[in-house]
C-alpha cells in the first residue's frame, strides 16, 4: 500500500475531528446530550417507553438526603453510580452482603476483589460523588443506587467479576457497528476499554464475535483464562438490535452509542446511551466507521424491522444468505433465539439449545406452565408417576395402558418414555407453536423437568428438518 492509497482509505475511518465536527455537532443537540448524560432522568425516559433497564433503587440528591439515608433499604447486591459520571468512573458494584456487621454495628457489603465496604465507606463515596469528583465538569452531582445485573449464563466464563456489555453505534436509526466489552481483572470489573476492558468486534448480521482488542492491541484469548474471544455468539441478537434502535429513538440523538447488557432473568437491558461514542470500536471490528455512517446518511427508515434488515444487509457477513439462497433452508446456530407461542398465542422469546443428537424436542415444565399448559401438568399429577422409574416400572405402566388415560387430556397427544442417566421417565407430549429464524411451525415436544439445565428448551431432530446447523453461529 503506498501513501496515496493509505490516504484515500483513511478517509473511510472516523477520526476525532470528523466525529466531533460532522456527527456530534450536527446530529446531537445539546439538549438531548444533557438528557443521556443524566442517568437518572434517562432511566425514567427508558421506563416510560417500555425499554428494559435496571431498576432505580434510590437516588441521593443532597447531603441532607445522604445524612438521613437509611442503609437498611439497600438490598444484598446493588450498583452505586454518579449521575453525571463518565467512562465508568466512580461506579461501585456490590456483589453481596458480608455476613458480619462491623464493630459499630454497620452493615457491610463486598465489592470486586473481595473488598469490604461498610455503611461509612459507602457514605464517604457518595459524598465524593455529591462533591462532583466523578462528574464531567467536577460540578456537584447526584448519586443513585440501581439494581445489579446478574451475569447471563452464556457469558459466565468470559467476565472477571463485572458484566460484559454490548455497545451498538446507531446512526440515523440504523445500527452501524457493534462491539462486546468484557471487564477484566485490570479494569476492576468495569467494561470500559480505556480502563483495560476487552473490546470484541461483532458481525452485524449474525451477532457473532470477530476480533478482540485490549488496550488497543489485538488479542486472541482472555489473558487470564485463555478463553477464545472470536466466534462467540451473542444471545438475543435480534432483540438487542431492536432495543438499540428504540433507545436511540428516545434519546433524540442522531449519532449515539447504546450500551446493552444481558441479564440472567430479564434478558437484554439498556445500561446507558452515549452521545460521544469512542472510536476504538473500529479497531475491534477492523472496519472503518465513517464509510458506514456515510452509507446510511439520509436514508429514510420508517420501521425498526427495516432498520434491522438494513444493518444486517449492509454491515454483516454475506456467507449465510448465500447458503440460504442455494438450499432454501435457513442457517441456525447451536444456541438459537426463538419465539414460542403460548396457548393463548402469547409470545415468549427464549434461548433454545439445538441438539441434533436428541430425537425429540423437549421443554421445561416451568416454561410449559408459562405457556399455559399448567393443566397438562396437573393432569399428569393425578397418575402419581415417580419422576425417575426403572425399566420394569415403565413396562408395568405400558402394560396397564396408563397412556390411554393420560391421553384423555385434549392437549396431550401422546406419552414418551425418556431414558436418562438416572433411569427412565414418563412424559406427556404436546403440540407447540414456535418461530425459529423466519419459520413459524408446530412441533411435538416433551414436557420434562429441566430446571437444573442451562436452556429451558431443546430443539431435537423432529423440529430441525427445515434448517441447516452451523456450530460457529
Amino acid at each position, binding site marked *: 500500500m503506498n501513501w496515496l492509497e493509505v490516504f484515500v482509505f483513511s*478517509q473511510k475511518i472516523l477520526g476525532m475531528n470528523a466525529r466531533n465536527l*460532522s456527527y456530534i455537532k450536527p446530529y446531537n443537540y445539546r439538549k438531548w446530550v444533557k438528557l443521556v448524560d443524566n442517568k437518572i432522568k434517562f432511566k425514567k425516559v427508558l421506563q416510560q417507553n417500555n425499554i428494559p433497564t435496571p431498576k432505580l433503587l434510590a437516588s441521593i440528591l443532597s447531603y441532607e438526603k445522604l445524612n438521613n439515608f437509611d442503609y437498611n433499604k439497600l438490598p444484598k447486591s446493588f450498583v452505586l453510580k454518579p449521575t453525571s459520571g463518565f467512562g465508568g468512573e466512580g461506579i461501585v458494584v456490590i456483589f453481596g452482603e458480608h455476613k458480619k456487621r462491623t464493630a459499630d454495628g454497620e452493615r457491610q457489603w463486598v465489592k470486586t476483589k473481595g473488598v469490604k465496604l461498610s455503611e461509612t465507606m459507602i457514605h464517604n463515596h457518595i459524598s465524593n460523588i455529591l462533591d462532583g469528583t466523578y462528574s464531567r465538569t467536577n460540578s456537584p452531582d447526584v448519586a443513585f443506587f440501581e439494581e445489579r445485573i446478574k451475569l447471563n449464563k452464556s457469558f459466565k466464563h468470559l467476565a472477571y467479576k463485572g458484566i460484559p456489555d454490548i455497545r451498538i453505534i446507531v446512526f440515523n436509526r440504523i445500527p452501524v457497528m457493534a462491539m462486546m466489552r468484557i471487564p477484566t481483572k485490570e479494569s476492576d470489573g468495569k467494561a470500559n476499554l480505556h480502563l483495560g476492558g476487552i473490546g470484541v468486534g461483532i458481525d452485524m448480521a449474525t451477532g457473532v464475535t470477530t476480533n478482540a482488542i485490549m488496550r488497543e492491541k489485538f488479542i486472541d484469548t482472555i489473558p487470564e483464562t485463555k478463553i477464545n474471544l472470536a466466534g462467540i455468539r451473542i444471545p438475543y441478537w435480534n432483540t438487542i438490535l431492536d432495543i438499540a434502535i428504540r433507545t436511540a429513538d428516545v434519546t433524540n440523538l442522531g449519532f449515539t452509542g447504546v450500551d446493552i447488557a444481558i441479564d440472567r432473568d430479564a434478558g437484554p437491558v439498556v445500561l446507558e446511551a452515549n452521545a460521544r461514542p469512542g472510536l476504538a470500536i473500529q479497531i475491534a471490528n477492523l472496519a472503518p466507521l465513517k464509510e458506514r455512517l456515510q452509507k446510511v446518511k439520509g436514508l429514510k427508515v420508517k420501521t425498526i424491522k427495516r432498520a434491522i434488515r438494513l444493518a444486517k444487509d449492509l454491515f454483516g457477513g454475506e456467507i449465510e444468505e448465500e447458503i440460504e439462497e442455494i438450499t432454501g433452508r435457513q442457517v441456525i446456530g447451536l444456541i438459537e433465539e426463538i419465539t414460542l407461542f403460548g396457548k393463548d398465542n402469547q409470545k415468549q422469546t427464549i434461548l433454545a439449545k439445538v441438539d441434533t443428537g436428541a430425537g425429540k424436542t423437549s421443554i421445561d415444565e416451568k416454561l410449559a406452565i408459562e405457556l399455559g399448559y399448567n393443566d397438562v401438568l396437573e393432569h399428569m399429577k393425578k397418575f402419581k408417576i415417580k419422576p425417575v422409574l426403572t425399566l420394569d416400572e415403565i413396562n408395568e405402566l405400558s402394560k396397564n395402558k396408563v397412556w390411554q388415560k393420560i391421553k384423555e387430556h385434549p392437549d396431550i397427544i401422546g406419552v414418551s418414555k425418556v431414558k436418562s442417566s438416572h433411569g427412565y421417565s414418563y412424559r406427556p407430549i404436546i403440540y407447540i407453536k414456535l418461530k425459529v429464524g423466519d419459520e413459524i411451525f408446530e412441533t411435538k415436544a416433551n414436557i420434562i423437568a429441566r430446571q437444573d439445565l442451562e436452556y429451558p428448551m431443546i430443539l431435537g431432530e423432529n423440529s430441525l428438518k427445515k434448517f441447516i446447523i452451523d456450530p460457529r453461529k
Partner: protein
Amino acid sequence: MDIFFDYLIRNDVPRETIDILLMFPIMAGFIVAARQIIGIKSFGIYTPLIITFALTEIGFKYGVSIFIVSLLVASIVRFLLRKIRILYLPKIALILSITALSMFFSLVLGIFSDSTMFVQASIYQILIIITLVEKFINAQMEKGYRTAVILSLETLILASLGNLIMTTTRLRDLVFYNPWVILIVFAGIIFLGRYEGLRLSEYIRFRKIISNQ
C-alpha cells in the same frame, strides 16, 4: 501600528508585554494545530499556553525542572494520601500546598548551584507551573496514572516547542513590525476548526485497520 507601539513604549510599556500579546494568537494557533493535525492532546489550550509563557520567562532549563519536580512531589503526596479518606477539594489543596512548599527546597538547590536566574525568577511564573498539578491529579483520577503522565508529557512537549517559537527573535520582530500576519493566523485557526481529516496520531492508532485493507 508602528505609531501605536511607539506610543506604548514611550509610556513605559515593556516590549516584552507587547510581544507576548502579539504572539498569543500564534501560540494559540500552534496548539490548535498540534491538536487537530498531529493529535497532541495536552490539557486543553490554556494550560500549555500559560506554561509556555512561564517557561519563556523563567528560562527553559529551570522551567522544565520545576515542571518535573512539582509533578513528582504531587504524585508522591497523592500516593501518601491515598489511604486517608478525604474529599476531593481538600485533597487537592493539600497536594498543591505541599508542592508549593517543596519550592523552598528547589530554591535552596538553586542558591547552591548559583543560578541567579532561577532564584530571582518571579514567583508567579513558578506558581503558574505548579497549578498544572491540579490538572494532573484530576487526569489521574479520571483517566488513570498512565494517561495523566502522557498528557503531562504532551504539555511539556508543547510548551517546549512553544518556548522555541516564543524565543525566535525573528518571528517576534516579524509580528511586531507586521501585526497583520495575525489575521493569517486567524484564518489558519478557522481552517483547522473545520478540518475533518485523521490526525497523525490516528494514522498510528488505526494502522491495523489500514493494513488490514
